[in-house]
């Protein structure tokens, strides 16, 4: 299968800290990939580099054949790669609905400059319906419709996570990078949320990469696992094989007592 996202030899150091050392991975279209590793292993740095927030010291990233290494985050989002955040990045003083409306407004703008100045009843490209309907439908999919009038900053942790992910979906991404989508969510709800998110993503035909610390979630949802340690990828295999890998056992998962 063709690689939709191809990272080659990414290197990144911050002073004495090596966040990435020759990280290479070719992500296939429509796949679901889990990124595992202890804190500081380089998972978020990997995502930050792919999305342009950080520029690798060496190496290149290609998306559908195009070199995106030096592009800033907004360009990369416009190309169809979107990400969610470890700590939810929301517009605190705006309502849940307005958070999504801002995102839709930007989609309108990116469809053409006239979109920037458009009225509320213009159909949103890619959705075919006016902004507010699109926003409410998206919120509904994530179970946030009842909260739509509340300010984002008063939402509880799990809802904030969901809103963060919902905002990531507004631009109809073709590649979705989720940074710890279930962190801060109670273990009973983790599976439900992952299923909800993956269903929403797959309905749009997106390729999904997700960072996760809960190995049960990884085993259940990932088709392929990339294990990070100390800035390197130490295993790249199907979940069962990856989790059985001795290096992964040593540095990431731990041995069963």
């Amino acid at each position, binding site marked *: 299968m063709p690689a939709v996202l191809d990272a080659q030899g990414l290197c990144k150091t911050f002073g004495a800290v090596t966040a990435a050392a020759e990280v290479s991975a070719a992500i296939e279209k429509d796949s679901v990939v889990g990124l595992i590793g202890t804190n500081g292993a380089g998972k978020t740095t990997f995502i930050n580099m792919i999305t342009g927030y950080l520029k690798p010291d060496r190496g290149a990233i290609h998306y559908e054949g195009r070199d995106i290494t030096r592009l800033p985050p907004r360009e990369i*989002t416009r190309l169809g790669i979107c990400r969610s955040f470890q700590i939810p990045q929301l517009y605190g003083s*705006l*309502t849940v609905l*307005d958070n999504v409306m801002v995102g839709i407004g*930007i*989609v309108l703008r990116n469809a053409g400059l006239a*979109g920037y*100045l458009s009225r509320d009843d213009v159909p949103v490209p890619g959705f075919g319906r006016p902004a507010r309907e699109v926003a409410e439908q998206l919120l509904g999919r994530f179970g946030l419709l009842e909260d739509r009038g509340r300010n984002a900053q008063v939402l509880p942790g799990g809802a904030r996570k969901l809103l963060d992910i919902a905002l990531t979906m507004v*631009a109809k991404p073709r590649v979705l990078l989720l940074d710890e989508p279930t962190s801060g969510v109670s273990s009973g709800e983790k599976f439900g949320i992952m299923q909800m998110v993956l269903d929403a993503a797959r309905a749009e035909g997106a390729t999904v990469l997700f960072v996760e610390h809960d190995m049960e979630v990884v085993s259940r949802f990932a088709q392929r696992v990339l294990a990070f340690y100390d800035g390197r990828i130490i295993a790249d295999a199907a979940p069962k094989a990856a989790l059985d890998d001795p290096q992964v056992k040593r540095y990431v998962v731990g041995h069963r007592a």
Partner: protein
Amino acid sequence: MRHDRTTTVIIAAFVLLVVAGKWLPQWAMFIMTIALARGLVVLGLLLLLRAGLVSFGQALFYCIGAYAAGALGRFFGISDIFIEMLVGGVLAAATAFVLGFLLARYRGIFFGLLSLALSMILYGLLVKTEALGSTDGFNILPSTLFGWKPGADWVRYAVLVSAGAVVAFACMLVHRYLQTPLGRLAPAIKDNEIRVEYMGASARHAVHVMYVIAAALAGIGGALAATTVGHIDPEMAYWTSSGEFIFIAILAGTGNVLAPFVGALIYGAIHTMAYDLSPNTWQMSLGVALLVLIVFLPEGVWSLGKLRARRT
């Protein structure tokens, strides 16, 4: 629907102005026109404030607009009020377009003090420019309207109505703008710029546009004020001038496009009172009043008039 209500109010206010304005005494017409001029500057200031940017130097564009109006008369013999406002607005916008490449990168104190510094630079330049009268400035030709030169007792009314028309138009445009995706971007930029970038928009670009719009409004206001007062001087770019606009902005709050004009009227009253009370320290009175406002009435006087809470 709220947005229809505002448009209706704007149009109604303008009609009221045209009809009832002729009955106002000359000094009242003067005060109203000045309030309209200042209100325009503050309207722009509030647009920036929504994005979290405090411009301490809107007086820069106010002054550019004023001097443009003056120069039109002094060097080209043009005194048409609409041309003055147009040229003032365009020149201010052009300046903002250039300066925006630098300023749009900055937020918070940097943006504030940088804007202050730029206005003080203009002040310094004007003070040293003989051709424009240095510290004395110069007078402006009496206004004409599409070639018609109003008689002495019609001039103020003509200027007031022209101002009203321009302001009404500007208000409707800004009101419309606030409902567009670009208008909605301002509070998002204030809250979380990283998220804005990751949603696929350039915060810098949006700020640049807002800066230019605010400058254009200030330039039009400056030209209008100049023409009403009949005289311009470098003081219009001095930091205290910017301070007045800030004061009105705080007084008005961001509730509605009409708030700046109400605020400007109230400010005119406060200023006169403060001046009467202590002519040498009216600045201090202004500062104290501003402090009190900020601490106790952060949403501006408009929040007093709200009958229904917009947010829970």
